[in-house]
């Protein structure tokens, strides 16, 4: 059962960790070596899974659009439908869910193992700040790489839609591309990328918080990792609703 007191305590602790992490993000020394290492880990190694997710989503979108309402001739709007849906909504959300599951769980498993084997305490005992050394590079890398992956994923998804449009639906490539470019606005892209920034923060902070607070050996690390995947997914989906409203209001 949901314990409101525990929820308030967790929220407060996450807020404190957020404050310390963002202060660490802008305070010298910048551990750029650690940041780039994490960017490689979080971004480059997630490229495959993000690409596959969005390519096939683009292809499915194209098919569904054409087959759902054939009598209305919607296949001639496939480019617009695929691009708008992907860039505004499905690109950031699906990339965050898939990549977030991977990297958030990885963060919790890594930090949780360090916690239960006293490596975090060892860092503290050597006068090093675990937030600065471990959380800040992960947060920085996620804030940079998730929006980047989202943009790449959007592009690949639109290409997936193009493939289906040309090969299966007899829509010319030029027509599809023209439809995409005329329908997509800067607000669409800004909305999608803006969401990705928020999702990146949720994934990194939940992943690190659960890792740093893991206890009870391997079993505890396993539980913390599962919690991260579930909590990050819920936060992404719930916040997506409010962010969508917010971005429409701002636009």
């Amino acid at each position, binding site marked *: 059962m949901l314990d409101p007191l525990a929820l308030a305590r967790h929220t407060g602790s996450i807020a404190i960790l957020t404050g310390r992490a963002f202060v660490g993000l802008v305070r010298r020394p910048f551990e750029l070596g650690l940041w780039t290492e994490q960017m490689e880990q979080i971004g480059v190694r997630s490229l495959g899974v993000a690409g596959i997710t969005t390519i096939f989503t683009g292809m499915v979108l194209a098919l569904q659009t054409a087959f759902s309402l054939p009598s209305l001739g919607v296949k001639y709007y496939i480019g617009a439908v695929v691009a708008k849906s992907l860039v505004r909504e499905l690109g950031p959300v699906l990339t965050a869910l898939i990549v977030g599951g991977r990297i958030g769980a990885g963060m919790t498993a890594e930090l949780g*193992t*360090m916690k239960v*084997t*006293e*490596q975090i*305490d*060892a860092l*503290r*005992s*050597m*006068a*090093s*700040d675990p937030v600065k050394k471990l959380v800040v590079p992960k947060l920085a890398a996620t804030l940079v790489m998730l929006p980047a992956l989202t943009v790449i994923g959007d592009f690949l998804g639109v290409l997936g839609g193009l493939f289906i449009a040309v090969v299966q639906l007899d829509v010319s490539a030029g027509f599809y591309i023209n439809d995409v470019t005329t329908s997509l606005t800067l607000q669409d892209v800004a909305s999608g990328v803006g969401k990705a920034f928020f999702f990146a923060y949720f994934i990194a902070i939940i992943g690190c918080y659960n890792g740093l607070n893991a206890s009870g050996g391997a079993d505890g690390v396993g539980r913390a990792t599962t919690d991260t995947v579930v909590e990050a997914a819920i936060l992404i989906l719930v916040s997506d609703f409010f962010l969508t409203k917010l971005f429409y209001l701002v636009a």
Partner: protein
Amino acid sequence: MTLPETRREDPAWTADTRPEATDPVLYRIRGLVMSYGEHRVLDDLSFDIRRGECLAVLGRSGSGKSVLLRQLNGLEAPDEGTVEFDGTDLAALSEYDLFPFRRRIAMLFQGGALFDSMDVYENIAFPMREHTDLDDVEIAAKVAEKLGMVHLAGIEAKMPADLSGGMKKRVALARSLALDPTTVLFDEPTTGLDPVTSATIGRLIRSVQTRLGVTSVVVTHDIVLARRVGDRVAFLHEGRFRFLGDWAEAEASEDEVFAGFLAGREEEDDAA
């Protein structure tokens, strides 16, 4: 006296090696109380640790020895009481204000707590990279020196996963000495090790003590180790010291619980 390179510039580091540091007491612990829920682990504990001595803290598993040790470098703050280190109450300091003190107070963890993602060299070099201006050549020389001190020269490239339990603890000891600390805290240094390796660890602790002149606190339930390394011995039981004194006094102690612990006798509630 020539101070080691790593300490020379920082007044906080030199505080207990400076000529005017004449106070024979390094730690003054007063009224320490620590509870987890209803369980009072440390109960109004007060004692001193003398400069340059090795204090062995004995106690049964779960008696609060490790909790006590973690108060001595501020890893945990007590519910009540003061932990005065060289005139400063560590219990009153924030995490960041504790950093200068933690550079002087090294800690050896029960499982070694080596960083899995780094090889032996990087593990030992880590504190030097963090807190000194030493260049790579100087760091390499220091890493080799520290590994030599624990009789593990030449294993720089090994990963922690490739080391035995005893080797991990020796590498962890080398890492804890990397910043030339003035105080070393040992948390159950022989737990899980065979008697021969335990004897090796005991000899190393003693040699660190005599060669570097550090103040050490060793918490353990290993009586053989405590006899080997401890100048004085304390016995923690139900949150308080049932005994604190030298070994001659310990042998003559008439405290039933302590004498029973030394003799390896079960207490009534264990036997029941």
